[in-house]
């Protein structure tokens, strides 16, 4: 029997109400992503890729349609439900890293465990991942003492420490130079291969998109390829 997709989107619509104007950012998205797949979503500005990212991450609710992540129908979730989603099912990597400036790298990762109500201890497997991410010697440093590439690697570690069903990355190399960009993208691919982590990466960069197993193209709120 074929395993059902880990992400299943049907007829996803998202409308923003800006004063008297309604902006339809997503106009009916249908998309399936299999477990363990690394999918790059590309498109120009205004294509709706970030909006789809925000819906998948539970940061904003869908207006209509159905979105299922690892068996959970998220389109109908309330605020509390979407908050739980981010704790349990979804790991997020942002373009701007979004680390807490007052905590060390280690504490930034640990707080994800604490929020999820899990014990603050790392498995042997996670310690191995930290070694792969090259963070072992940087764990006691605060973000202001780390380069952009290091901060993004901490953000990746934080996003996967709870073993989420999916890892969402929004322009993860947007603030990095080319060398660090390649390193981060290579790490994401490595995590996908090594752990079977399902990854959905939003990018406007075609070269970065090439690191995924599949490229999904969006334009004007719909998938075009």
């Amino acid at each position, binding site marked *: 029997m074929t395993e059902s997709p880990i992400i299943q989107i049907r007829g996803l619509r998202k409308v923003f109400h800006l004063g008297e104007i309604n902006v339809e950012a997503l106009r009916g998205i249908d998309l399936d992503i299999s477990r363990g797949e690394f999918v790059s979503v590309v498109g120009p500005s205004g294509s709706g890729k970030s909006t789809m990212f925000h819906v998948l991450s539970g940061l904003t609710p869908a207006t209509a349609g159905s979105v299922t992540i690892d068996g959970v129908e998220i389109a109908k979730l309330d605020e509390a439900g979407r*908050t739980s989603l981010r704790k349990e099912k979804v790991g*997020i990597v942002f373009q701007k890293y*979004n*680390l*807490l400036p007052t*905590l060390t790298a280690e*504490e930034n990762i640990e707080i994800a465990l*604490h*929020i999820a109500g899990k014990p603050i201890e790392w498995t042997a497997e996670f310690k191995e991942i930290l070694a792969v991410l090259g963070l072992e010697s940087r764990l006691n440093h605060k973000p202001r003492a780390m380069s952009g590439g290091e901060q993004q690697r901490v953000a990746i570690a934080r996003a996967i420490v709870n073993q989420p069903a999916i890892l969402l990355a929004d322009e993860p190399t947007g603030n990095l130079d080319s060398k660090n960009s390649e390193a981060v993208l290579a790490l994401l691919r490595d995590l996908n291969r090594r752990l079977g982590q399902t990854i959905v990466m939003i990018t406007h960069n075609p070269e970065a998109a090439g690191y995924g197993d599949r490229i999904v193209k969006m334009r004007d709120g719909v998938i075009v390829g």
Partner: protein
Amino acid sequence: MLNQLVLENLKHRPVRTILSVAAIAIEVAMILTLVGLSYGMLDEAQRRQRGIGADVIIKPGSTSVMSFGGVTLPEKLVDYFEKQPGVAMATGSATHVISGFLESASGVNLDALTRMSGGFKFLAGGPFSGPNDIIVDERYARTKQLTVGSTLRLWDKDWKVCGIVEPGKLSRVLLPLPVVQDLAAAPGKLSQIFIKLQDPTKADEFVKALKANEQLSGYQIYSIDEIVSLFSVEGVPGFKPFLNVVIGLGVVVGFLVVLLSMYTAVLERTREIGILKSLGAAPGYIMGILLRETAILALAGAVAGILLSFVTQWAIEAFGSPALVQKVVPTWWPITTAIALVGALAGTLYPAMKAVRHDALEALSYD
């Protein structure tokens, strides 16, 4: 983990943290100072009343118990009371205001008062020997920097300090009775009459008998226990409401300071709150961080405020009027700590509610 985050947040903004703690410390110190002054002055008044050695005190009918003015009692009443059955001795004093309502001097028959009270302990000098002699207690001498032989100017006249006594008997400043009667333009009159009984246990009985005497109906008659009880927190009318007003002001100050401080903290950390929300932090989690920060600020402020109250005590003793006595009242430390906590936590509620209602996406894009 949460405590780590909270402490790092407080360390990250040291000026804001210090100012918040200082404001709460001032709130706590203000309450403790005013409570300490109230208790201190009342306790001091009690001590000085008991120190007279009297069992019964007579005052003019027209004065309040707390005031020491009104030189209207006929001096010949002293002889009358001395002849009453059960009385060991009687003497009186006349009070004259030095300044305001806090400082006054007492004119006394020093020999009689010495016998009644069990003796004045002279730390320096001795009794009156001239018409311009004045005796002060050790606290008064220290505050006014007086020694035996110093000149003290009161009522536009120079007085010579002939003796410095241990505090705790009647008044801080003593002069010969006729001198004060002259100053008060009340020759042959007294402010109070003190009666020592042969059997102090019969004081209540004695007071009852005096009150039954119609000829004495114009006077206030108290046993020493009764009058001392009036110099207490419960005995002074309006004192508790006064304290409640002070406490209320303290709570409002703490509330407003923390409200403003946490409001700016929440604004500054909008993005951090967005990050926590993006990690799945529930409203209770975020609120918990803010309330913990507030609790730490309040507790630190309370401790600092308690320490600051010792500073105010020192300052009042060093620079204030000798009439002002600030007592340390440890039973109020947990009360003021609770007041600081309650005010601060209440002040955090609005900013905390604002923080948890922030849209996560908007918060993440805040710079």
